[in-house]
């Protein structure tokens, strides 16, 4: 899962990036409206945290332009403006949720999790695939009730596959959603991580579909 944080305050941005990184997301960040707009326009994010009062370009207009361009990623507005008419105009511009400063990091994480899940079409905070369970709240994966130990990169890969279970996910897509933009991307590492995941769950749950990518499903034997 890859997120974009657009926030002009350097300290808050650092905190957001850290907290979101710890929660298992790959995080990109921008400090002004133009940079934020460019990143959102060019990278496939799973969710965006957007401040409204931004230098160079106002957050609302950035959001409106993303929506006009057809970007569907969920956007959470994080702003000090707490009047209801400001919330209404934010939501009408295409935001999916609205959080006012000062805020609780836990609440931000919960809302983001919900946004990501909903945009992938899952209603509950737990996603199941056969015996495999992903608890988005605690960022834990269990198989048949027993926890599976995952590194952060493995977790990101697993979480993305779980959110898009029963769908074919291309290798590029995985790369784009697993790493932030500064990471030295090498699509071969994906194969390495897939290999590691296959060792921790029944092998046939992640199938390789030649020329297309991977697909996580219940598997023939299990369930």
């Amino acid at each position, binding site marked *: 899962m890859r997120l974009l944080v657009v926030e002009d305050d350097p300290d808050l941005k650092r905190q957001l990036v850290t907290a979101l990184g710890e929660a298992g997301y790959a995080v990109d960040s921008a400090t002004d409206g133009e940079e934020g707009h460019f990143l959102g326009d060019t990278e496939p994010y799973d969710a965006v945290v957007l401040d409204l009062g931004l230098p160079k370009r106002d957050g609302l207009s950035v959001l409106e332009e993303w929506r006009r361009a057809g970007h569907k990623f969920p956007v959470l507005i994080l702003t000090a403006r707490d009047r*209801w008419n400001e919330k209404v105009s934010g939501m009408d511009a295409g935001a999916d949720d609205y959080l006012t400063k000062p805020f609780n990091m836990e609440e931000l994480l919960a809302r983001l999790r919900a946004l990501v899940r909903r945009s992938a079409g899952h209603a509950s905070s737990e996603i199941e695939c056969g015996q495999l369970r992903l608890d988005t709240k605690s960022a834990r994966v269990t198989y048949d009730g027993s926890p599976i130990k995952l590194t952060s990169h493995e977790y990101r890969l697993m979480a993305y596959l779980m959110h898009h279970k029963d769908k074919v996910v291309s290798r590029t897509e995985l790369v784009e959603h697993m790493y932030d933009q500064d990471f030295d991307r090498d699509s071969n590492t994906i194969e390495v991580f897939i290999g590691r995941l296959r060792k921790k769950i029944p092998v046939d749950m992640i199938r390789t579909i030649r020329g297309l990518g991977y697909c996580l499903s219940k598997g023939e034997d299990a369930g």
Partner: protein
Amino acid sequence: MRVNSLAFRLFAASALWTLVVLPITGWVLNSIYRQEIERVFDLRLDTAWWALVNLSVSPGATTPREPTATAFGDPSYNVPFSGWYWQINPVDPAPADKVLISTSLQGEQLSLPKTGVTTPLGSAYAVVDSIGPQKERVRMFSKILTYGDGAAAKQYRYIVTGNLTETDVTLLRFRSTLWLALSLLGAGLVLATFFQVRYGLRPLQQVEQGLGDIRSGKAMRLEGELPTEIVPLQRELNALIKSNQDIIERARTHVGNLAHALKTPISVLTNEARSDKTPFGMKVSEQVGIMRDQVQHHLDRARMVARSGSLGGATDVKPALDALVRVLSKIHGEKGLKLSATCDDQLTFQGEKQDLEEMLGNLLDNACKWAKARVEVTATRLPPAKRGQPAMLQIQVNDDGPGLTEAERAVARQRGKRLDETKPGSGLGLSIVTELVGLYSGKFDLDRSELGGLSARLKLPAA
């Protein structure tokens, strides 16, 4: 009319002037009239005196001749004790000497007083005011005439009197009429002054009322056609009010900017301290929480004060309600809430759109946070309870959440109180609603909902 007022000053000055001038006028008029009356009176006496002399003196006679009653022109001298008398008596009476008297004296005799006798310049006789036989006030004209020559010469005193009491009565009557007229005139003037002052100062009342309206927020400036003398005052006042409003507006913007600018650092501190479980971290956490509430509180206050300046305007309820329902459905969509709103057509709220949104937004947000599956909003126009009362509208927000006990409902409306710390939010929602409703003189009740949860009911002025 208070003592220290323009009206009282104008009134008192005018009344004082009237009270000084009218008595003087009265006194002058009275004097002129009395002089005139006396002049006529003296003329009459003068005529009578000369008549008496002409009738009694015959050439070569040594004693006065008694005038016949009818020959004497003035009939008053024949009326008994009329106060109009004449008398001719010798100055040194011999036993044989006769005293001649008018019919009106009826045998009584007049005597000249010893004092007070004057001889006015240019008159032939002495004049004295005295008492007649009936104790009436009389004026006497008296002169001594000499009959005969040498040793045979004999002096006779001629006295003619006129009734002063008659004159006194006439004067008294005139004076009472005069005073009555003048008193009426004075009262009339004072009354007229009173109304003049009120009428003249009425524009000031208009100014006072205008200023009251500005203070109570009904008007933004001093309006109306005012007299030329007050127009500069009006202009200056409006300029002053405008500059005041500008200052307030700037100050408010600064408060808002400050508050908003503080929110980001507070967020940073909150998050930083949250991960620090040392006593220091806990302390920072606690203090930052207080800062957050303070910032929010003063921001709300600044907004609230801004509102009280202008409560005008009418807001359509339906679009505002629909927008909020749309937003909240999106925000709380995850729970699968069914959020429904019914609103009377053409329902308008007498007040600012922002305030309506703030009240409704907070109530709906609370309902959505706690509801299990359903939130229902109904907005209706209430018929006025009594004729002449302003129309009201009622907005009811019902949810099927756990609801609140009676004690909890009382606490919920206080600032910063949160009944459950586990649900997100600053806990300021309901207290803002309470304050805004108070600002609009509306009513805000919490009750048990038909859906099982909380029912929040707003009564607000309708436009």
